[in-house]
C-alpha cells in the first residue's frame, strides 16, 4: 500500500496533477480527521442555506452548534446524559456478566452448544423494541424497563462473541497447557480459555456498548423515561428543531466517546493480540 505509485509506471510529468492529493496524504491522521469533519459541517451548513431543504426543518450546522454549546451550559442536558448513561452502564454490566458466564458454560461443552443453538438463534433476532409492552408490564415506567430493553439487546453480541472466542481456543495451546499439568477445568479456563476469549469479548463489549446506548435512548424516546431520548422527543414535539439536532449530536458524540473508550481499553489490554498488533504496524 505504501508503494502504490509504482502501479503507474509513467514517471515524471504524469505524476504532477496528483500533488494536492499527495500533500493531503502527508498530513497527520488527526488533522485529516479534523479536515473531514470541517468539510462535513460545511456541507451541512450549505444544504439549508441554499434552500435545498427548508432551514426550519434542517437548521444550518452553525445554528445547531450554537444551540449545542448553549445546552452544554444547562443542568438539564447533563441530567439527561446522566440518566441515559446510568441505564446504559447498569444494563451493559448486567448483560455482560450474564453473557460471559453463560457463554463460557455453553461454549466449553459441545453438547450445550448444540442444545442451545436453535433457541439462541430464535431469541436473538427478536427486536427488543417489541418487548416494550412486556417491560412496562413487568417493571412499570421505571429504570428497570429501560434496563430490560438494554440488557436484552446487548446480551446477544457479547454471548455470541464469547461463544466464538471459546471455540477459537487453539488445540495446540490447549494441548500444551494439558501436557504442562494445567489439567483442571479452572486452570484451563483461567490460563487458556479466558485469555483466548478476551479479544472476542472486548469486541463483543464494544458492539454491545453501542447497542446499549441505542436502546437506552430508544426506550426513553418510546416509553418516555427521563434521559436524552426523552429530551429529543420533547424538543421535537415543541418544534424546537435546532435543539433536537443539538441533542442528536450530543447522542452521537456520546457514542463516539464510548467507542473511543473501548478502543483504548482494547489497545491497553490486548496489545498482544494480532488484530491490535497489525493496527499498530500500519
Amino acid at each position, binding site marked *: 500500500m505504501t508503494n502504490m505509485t509504482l502501479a503507474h509506471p509513467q514517471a515524471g510529468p504524469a505524476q504532477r496533477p496528483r500533488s494536492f492529493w499527495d500533500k493531503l496524504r502527508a498530513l497527520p491522521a488527526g488533522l485529516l480527521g479534523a479536515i473531514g469533519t470541517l468539510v462535513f459541517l460545511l456541507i451541512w451548513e450549505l444544504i439549508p442555506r441554499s434552500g435545498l431543504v427548508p432551514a426550519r426543518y434542517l437548521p444550518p450546522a452553525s445554528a445547531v452548534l450554537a444551540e449545542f454549546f448553549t445546552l452544554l451550559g444547562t443542568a438539564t442536558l447533563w441530567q439527561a446524559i446522566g440518566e441515559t448513561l446510568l441505564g446504559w452502564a447498569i444494563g451493559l454490566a448486567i448483560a455482560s456478566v450474564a453473557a460471559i458466564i453463560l457463554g463460557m458454560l455453553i461454549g466449553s461443552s459441545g453438547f450445550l452448544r448444540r442444545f442451545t443453538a436453535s433457541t439462541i438463534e430464535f431469541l436473538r433476532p427478536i427486536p427488543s423494541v417489541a418487548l416494550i409492552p412486556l417491560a412496562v408490564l413487568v417493571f412499570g415506567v421505571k429504570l428497570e424497563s429501560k434496563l430490560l430493553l438494554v440488557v436484552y439487546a446487548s446480551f446477544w453480541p457479547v454471548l455470541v462473541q464469547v461463544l466464538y472466542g471459546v471455540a477459537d481456543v*487453539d488445540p495446540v495451546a490447549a*494441548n*500444551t497447557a*494439558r*501436557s*504442562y*499439568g494445567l*489439567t483442571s477445568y479452572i486452570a484451563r479456563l483461567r490460563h487458556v480459555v479466558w485469555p483466548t476469549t478476551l479479544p472476542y469479548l472486548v469486541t463483543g463489549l464494544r458492539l454491545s456498548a453501542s447497542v446499549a446506548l441505542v436502546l437506552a435512548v430508544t426506550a426513553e424516546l418510546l416509553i418516555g423515561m427521563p434521559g436524552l431520548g426523552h429530551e429529543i422527543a420533547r424538543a421535537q414535539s415543541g418544534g424546537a428543531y435546532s435543539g433536537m439536532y443539538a441533542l442528536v449530536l450530543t447522542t452521537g458524540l456520546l457514542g463516539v466517546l464510548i467507542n473511543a473508550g473501548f478502543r483504548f481499553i482494547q489497545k491497553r489490554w490486548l496489545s498482544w493480540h*494480532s488484530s491490535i498488533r497489525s493496527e499498530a504496524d500500519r
Partner: protein
Amino acid sequence: MNDEVSRPAASAREQRQEILLSVHGVQKIYASKSGPVEAVRDLTFDLRRGEFACIVGPSGAGKTTLLKIIAGLLEPTAGQVTLEGKPVTGPPKTMAVVFQEYGRSLFPWLTVQGNVDLPLKNARVPKDERDRRVTEALEAVGMAHAHARYPWQLSGGMQQRVAIARAVAYKPHILLMDEPFAAVDAQTRADLEDLVRDIWHRLGVTVLFVTHDIDESVYLAERVLVLSSSPTVVQEVVTIDLPDERNQLATRSTPRFAELRLHIHEQIQLAKRGLVPAQIAAGVL
C-alpha cells in the same frame, strides 16, 4: 559449544541403564467419517534413563500420533505406555512436550517470562524458586535478555528457544519434541540442534525427538528408531556410533555420518515400498 560439559555427563549416563519409558504393543485406530483409520499398528520399544533417541519415519507414519499417546494426550486403542513404572493415563507430571507449532504453543498474551513461568506457577512452585528456574532456563537458551518481550515480537528461532526453555524450567525427567525445528531456517536449525544436545548433556534429561529429517536424526541421537509407513511398526533401530562431541560442519562431513544417513534413507525407501525386514516381525529391538 558443548565441549567442556559433555564429558562428565556422558560418563554418568553410561551408568544409567534403568528403563524410563516403555511403549508396548501400542495401536491407534482413529474413527473418522470415512471409516476407521489405523494410524499406528503395533509399536514396541524402550527408552533408558538419560538416553537421546530420535524417531524418523515417512510423512503420515503416525509419529505425531505416537508422541501424543506417550504424552497422555491421546488414548491408544490397544497397548500400553509405562513411564517410570507407572502406566500413562493422562499427561504425566514428569514429562514436558515441545510442539512443532511453536507459534501456537506459546501463549501470546504472556511475556517470555510468563510463558516459562506458567507451568511452574500452576504447579505451585514457590516464587523464589520459580524465578531462579525461569532465569536459568532462559539463560540456558540464550534468551534471558528478552524475558519481558512477547512471543510475537521474537523470530521463529527465538520462539522455539522459549518453548525449549519452558520445557527445561519444568525440570522433566523426559522431554518429548515433535518436529520442533521443521519450520525454522537452516542456520537457526543448526543452532537449535546444538542447543538441544547441550541441554541434554547438562541436565541429563531423557529426550525423545521426532523428526522428518534423516540428517538431523543422525546428528542428534544416540539411537534412531525408524518407523515404517502406515500401518506403522518399528522398521529398524539404528545405533548412532558417532563420537559424543558433535559439530555441525565436522561431524556432518565424516564418512560414517554419510553411511548412517544413507542406511536410514534406504530403510525409509524400503518402508515406503512396504518392505519390512524380518527381524521387525518378531517385535524385538
